[in-house]
């Protein structure tokens, strides 16, 4: 690290000369620093920006400030009610110590394909808001740890359209706490009159970014949720991901497991 600065208001963002790495809860950045990485970077601590940790229902949206921690997201009544899969995902992040510090904005900015909140954001149709623009979650990530963020562009809020939905998150890891996902999934369904009106399905850790299962979503739309439909949806979904072998798991295991977890999640929605 070259320099450590702090900003106290969004107005100070525009005055930053050097390219910065933004620091909030530090749960990714300090791990990298402790490893000797980020040597040439300027760290800009944004943790004291006011009002960026709010979670609120506003009109037709649930707005979550970028500095909201996973602990606060996991227990938020608003998120539990309208974005249950995000609350479930938040509750599986790291450990109590990590959830007390790690922020939703940081998870998004870090851009890991295994970032636990991200499949939920895809499934829920979330929009990532920065100080410059709004980008749909599924257009935000361009590769492993790569996003559309430009120099000193700061994520300020994540906005989720409020729907009368059922949503679920699942994650497979070597153990319950402090496990980086081998595969994760989120599903959000709007069901009325016995038919699926809207489906959002996404998988984590099975591609260069989180992947939306667009074919599966299309297949489910207008269908009645039953065992045959679910089994077909799970097969379709497994064909839409592109997992690899790495030190956490194998492509074969990930593909088979992805089908299993999405099947289980859909069964819960019946």
């Amino acid at each position: 690290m070259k320099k450590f600065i702090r900003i106290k208001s969004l107005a100070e963002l525009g005055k930053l000369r050097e390219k910065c790495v933004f620091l909030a809860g530090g749960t990714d950045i300090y791990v990298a620093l402790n490893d000797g990485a980020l040597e040439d970077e300027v760290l800009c601590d944004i943790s004291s920006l006011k009002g960026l940790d709010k979670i609120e229902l506003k009109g037709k949206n649930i707005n979550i400030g970028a500095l909201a921690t996973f602990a606060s997201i996991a227990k938020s009544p608003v998120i539990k009610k309208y974005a249950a899969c995000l609350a479930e995902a938040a509750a599986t992040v790291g450990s109590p110590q990590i959830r007390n510090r790690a922020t939703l904005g940081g998870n998004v900015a870090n851009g890991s394909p295994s970032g636990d909140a991200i499949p939920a954001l895809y499934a829920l149709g979330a929009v990532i808001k920065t100080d410059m623009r709004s980008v749909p979650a599924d257009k935000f990530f361009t590769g492993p740890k790569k996003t559309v963020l430009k120099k000193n562009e700061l994520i300020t809020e994540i906005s989720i359209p409020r729907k009368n939905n059922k949503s679920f998150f699942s994650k497979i890891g070597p153990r319950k706490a402090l496990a980086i996902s081998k595969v994760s999934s989120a599903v959000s369904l709007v069901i009325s009159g016995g038919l699926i009106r809207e489906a959002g399905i996404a998988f984590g850790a099975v591609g260069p970014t989180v992947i939306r299962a667009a074919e599966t979503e299309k297949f489910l739309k207008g269908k009645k949720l039953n065992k045959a439909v679910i089994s077909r949806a799970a097969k379709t979904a497994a064909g839409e991901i592109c997992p690899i072998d790495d030190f956490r798991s194998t492509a074969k295991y990930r593909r088979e497991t992805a089908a299993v977890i999405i099947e289980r999640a859909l069964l819960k929605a019946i």
Partner: protein
Amino acid sequence: MRVSFKINGKKVTLDAAPEARLLDVIREDLGLTGTKEGCSKGECGACSVIVDGELVDSCIFPVAQAEGREIITIEGLSSGGKLHPIQKAFIDEGAVQCGFCTPGMVLAAKALLDKKSNPSDADIKEALSGNLCRCTGYTKIKNAVKKASQNGELGRTKKR
């Protein structure tokens, strides 16, 4: 930078690099070596401390963010030579082997019991899930937390 915070009830002001890890400031500058460094990745919980009532890993916590806050380390639990009921329960239940994880475990238990004085077994497991013990196992540690929760003295020690 000049940074001020309260630690174990005492106000301190010191000079530190803003990026310095809270862990190093606690151990090196303040000489409170009860807080341990394990993995340096926020995965083992040996460096756990309580900041404004929340359990955090001090190895991934910049001291700049400690400004104006209230920190509790393991040294802040006993009072006047008398052990905190959680510490006492760890001894009574044999929940300590090498002891390296113990300060973090005790603080994780305190962070839980300060919020929930009568936790379920699942609450206890979750509260300890960010702390690793490599010696023995977790049964005795869980039992110790349960026992501490049943100790009537606990309510009176909330502040420390």
